[in-house]
């Protein structure tokens, strides 16, 4: 199958600093592809180059069969973009926002009016068709922004942090909408900070850091290949002493982050048994998830830039 996005040797250098430093990746038709990474990892810059919004310093980009940035406008005709910050037009109503955006694609009024009911239904904003943007909640604005990106019936939809800043209910609703898009055969690319989001939605994810892709694979593959099955998080007085004395032989790997000792193991039973004998320590046992893979690969220290 011909990939829908193909990126080879992509680099972006600002001054002396390579923000994106040799990225190769392919996105297959119909999949949901997640681009993950801490702040400053280069994922937004990678995405912007892919969308033809920033010229690359070096590398080859092909999106939807078009060379980028040479054929950006042609490519955009078949692409939907959901930006990180909602840039809806505050002077227009919900319907007017969709209509004006459709105008940017050269979609005629009659054709737009045919598509409008489906777009409103997708965004679940049928009752808000004539509402002003300022009267919408954060979740509604997001849904409208996603519906706006669908106005040209795109083959590929790219979403930059689609649920950042939304409450859990709104997030769940967005996820259901995105799954609906996938069911209809669209290809999705998204960036996110929420590992749960990536684990639930994405067929494959790429984890980036310092301008490079560290690993690519399905969430299940990444968890299998890069992390032990079980995690026991331990905290409380004397956690370090307990770690040295008891966890060392029972966990495959331990890591102290702040006041919490993370113990990674294929079998948690010996750890839990030992913890029962140290009632002053509190613990949480859970299955390892994508976030553990992410933290293992990109480190646990805080990124402020």
């Amino acid at each position, binding site marked *: 199958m011909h990939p829908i996005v193909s990126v080879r040797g992509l680099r972006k250098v600002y001054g002396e600093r390579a923000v994106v430093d040799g990225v190769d990746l392919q996105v297959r038709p119909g999949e949901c592809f997640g681009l993950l990474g801490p702040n400053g990892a280069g994922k937004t810059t990678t995405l912007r180059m892919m969308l033809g*919004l920033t010229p690359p310093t070096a590398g080859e980009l092909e999106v939807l069969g078009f060379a980028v940035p040479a054929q950006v406008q042609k490519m*955009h005709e078949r692409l939907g973009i959901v930006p990180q910050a909602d840039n809806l037009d505050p*002077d*227009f109503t919900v319907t007017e926002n969709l209509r*004006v*955006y459709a105008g*940017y*694609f050269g979609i005629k009024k009659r054709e737009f009016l045919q598509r409008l009911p489906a777009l409103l239904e997708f965004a679940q904003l049928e009752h808000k068709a004539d509402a002003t943007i300022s009267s919408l909640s954060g979740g509604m604005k997001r849904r409208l922004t996603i519906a706006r990106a669908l106005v040209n019936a795109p083959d590929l939809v790219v979403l930059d942090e689609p649920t950042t800043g939304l409450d859990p209910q709104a997030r769940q609703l967005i996820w259901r909408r995105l799954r609906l898009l996938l069911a209809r055969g669209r290809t999705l690319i998204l960036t996110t900070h929420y590992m749960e989001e990536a684990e639930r939605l994405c067929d494959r994810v790429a984890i980036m850091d310092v301008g490079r892709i560290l690993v690519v694979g399905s969430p299940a593959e990444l968890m299998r290949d890069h992390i032990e099955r079980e995690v026991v998080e331990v905290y409380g007085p004397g956690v370090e002493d307990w770690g040295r004395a008891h966890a060392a032989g029972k966990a495959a790997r331990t890591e102290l982050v702040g006041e919490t000792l993370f113990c990674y193991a294929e079998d948690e039973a010996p750890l839990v048994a030992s913890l029962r004998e140290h009632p002053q320590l509190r613990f949480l046992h859970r299955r390892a998830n994508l976030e553990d893979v992410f933290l293992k690969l990109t480190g646990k220290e805080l990124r402020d830039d």
Partner: protein
Amino acid sequence: MTSGCWQWPRPSQRALAVWRRNVLVWRKLMAPSLVGNFGEPLLYLLALGYGLGGFVGQVDGMDYVVFLAAGIVCTSAMNTASYECLYSAYTRMTVQETWAAMLSAPLSLDDIVCGEILWAGTKALINSSAVLLVATALGLVADWQALWVLPLALLLGCCFGAMALVVTAMSPGYDFFLYYFTLVVTPMFLLSGVFFPLTGVPDWVQMGAQLLPLAHGVELVRPLMTGQVLDGALLHLSVLFGYMVLASWVSLILVRRRLLR
């Protein structure tokens, strides 16, 4: 890609979608916009034209208010287009990210810049027409030849819109526009033969005024409104076109450097 920044503007038909978006917003906010952009020139015309005119008497063989009317039509075009491409365009470029939304669609910066300039020209045309209409009602317009002022208002609007967009593209914030108003717009307003004929000022000021697009606009519009013979039209038109084309190109270069990093 830095070299790509210098490319000559190559707008497509989609520039009209940018123009149409701005028309739609204008229609929604028409009332305050008309009061602001059309009320002020009217006040100038009435207060200065009749008030000051009573003391001045005849200028260049015509009533002062007749002399002034042509200048106010041109000034109205300049101010309208300048405000539009400074404050409003800046808002669309930064705060509202309207341009970012357009760039996500199949629009290029060439389309956006050309659409914005064309819209500034259109808005100038609307406001200048209103002033012209009032001037006609007041009996300050000689004959039908004054209709030629309308395409000129469009040209003036595009010209000043493009110049303002150059400033917008460099601007770190709204306050920056004051430099442009104080250093460019206001001196041009005062030295382009709007309020008084330039025949009375020193030669070097007259020479300098030849560089001001507004002066050339006034030179074209005044004879058309007062029924006099148009002189040197080709030169005046060339200057206005020159400013428009050059400023459009420079603003596009600057906008590309600002947004396509």
